């Protein structure tokens, strides 16, 4: 019986991902174009928010991927620590900058939406703050990868950082909730923030269908990018090994 760990073989991984990549990329383009165009041009304006509501088609999927990229990194880190598959460590490394960019997109689109809606670019709302902290965790993780020279050491260190960071990111998320309630009880902006966050339960189907397509597009986009970047990392490492061998020989 074939085991899933077969794909941990770099050669096998490259072959498989090479075959998958065009399909994933094609689906990404289709989903994103359909989702975004439908969302931007073929949905009615919200009766209170006007056309600003349409930024949701970028904001929510980006926020979704910002969190899930970290989960994927956590999973890959655990696999690396337990089973020592190099592809797994490289995939975690490949995912980090994407996650960081998604966090920026979520924060930036949120700010652009918040300016006309809440009247401010930034509030210390629990959600916003925890995303900012998540972004800091991404930065630390990426910086640590870049700073350590030896590949295996870097993989080990970042994996442990990822695990500890996950615990503290979750902890910070709840701590921030606590902190903010302590500061502003029942401010109207905060309630608006909470409502805007719970969109999935409140959005009517006219908006929800393109939103889901756009979310699927972002997920596929992430998968395609991770596959591509992991391939690049594998090849770069192989190239380094070859060059080192040539220098020796």
């Amino acid at each position, binding site marked *: 019986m074939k085991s899933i760990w077969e794909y941990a073989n770099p050669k096998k991984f490259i072959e498989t991902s090479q075959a998958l990549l065009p399909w994933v990329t094609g689906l990404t383009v289709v989903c994103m174009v359909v989702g975004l165009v439908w969302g931007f041009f073929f949905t009615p304006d919200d009766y209170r928010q006007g056309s600003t509501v349409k930024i949701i088609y970028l904001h929510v999927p980006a926020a979704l991927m910002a969190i899930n990229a970290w989960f994927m990194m956590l999973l890959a880190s655990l696999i690396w620590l337990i089973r020592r598959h190099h592809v797994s460590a490289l995939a975690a490394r490949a995912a980090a900058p994407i996650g960081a960019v998604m966090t920026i997109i979520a924060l930036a689109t949120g700010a652009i939406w918040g300016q006309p809606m809440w009247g401010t670019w930034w509030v210390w709302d629990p959600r916003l703050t925890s995303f900012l902290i998540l972004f800091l965790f991404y930065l*630390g993780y990426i910086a640590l990868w870049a*700073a*350590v020279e030896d590949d295996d050491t870097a993989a*080990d*260190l970042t994996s442990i950082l990822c695990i500890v960071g996950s615990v*503290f990111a979750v902890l910070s998320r709840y701590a921030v909730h606590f902190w903010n309630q302590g500061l502003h009880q029942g401010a109207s902006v905060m309630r608006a923030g909470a409502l805007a966050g719970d969109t999935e339960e409140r959005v009517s189907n006219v908006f929800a269908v393109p939103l889901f397509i756009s979310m699927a597009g972002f997920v596929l986009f992430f998968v395609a990018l991770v596959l591509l970047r992991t391939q690049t990392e594998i090849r770069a490492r192989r190239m380094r090994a070859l060059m080192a061998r040539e220098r020796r020989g």
Partner: protein
Amino acid sequence: MIALLTRDLKLAVRAGGGFGLGLAFFLILVALVAFGVGPESALLARIAPGILWVGALLACLLSLDRIFALDREDGSLDLLATAPLPMEGIVTVKALAHWITTGLPLVVAAPLLGLMLSLPGPGYLWLFLSLLLGTPALSVLGTFGAALTVGLKRGGLLMSLIVLPLYVPTLIFGAEVARRGAGGLSVEVPLLLLAGITCATLALLPFASAAVLRVNLR
């Protein structure tokens, strides 16, 4: 373990400025904040708990790179790693030594600095208690960061980037205890949460620090 602890403490005291340096930094920081926001005592009283907590955090951060860096340079860290003491124990003792040399002086000095920032009356006790409860967590977390970056040439800035986000929950609950205490509100909930964070980090994080240190000494 006790030998290691006394050795670290002696080194910190005799190699100059173990106790004093963090404290002096704390004092300067408080003075600078007062210069920055102006001498109005009502405003200072309101932000005093937060300033003192952030100050403690930064003073703690400043001395972190000393935990392992010197020992690694002269090779005593490798000796420690081969000693019969488990790595988790070494890490815990190191964190304890760091707390005694930086955390404890800050805790003792904080009410005095609170006086300078005209902290309201009931705040002193809670500020003192929250720092006493929270600074061990800061030391343990800092030890993790120091262990993570011990092999790096210029690890200082990277370490602060990694450690400071980890400090967020401790800071939030600690400052909240001090703030509520100063405002005469009930402090029970944040105090318990702060104690929970400290206990959990004390119990679990040494394992992560030890694992990281082993990787770095490989």
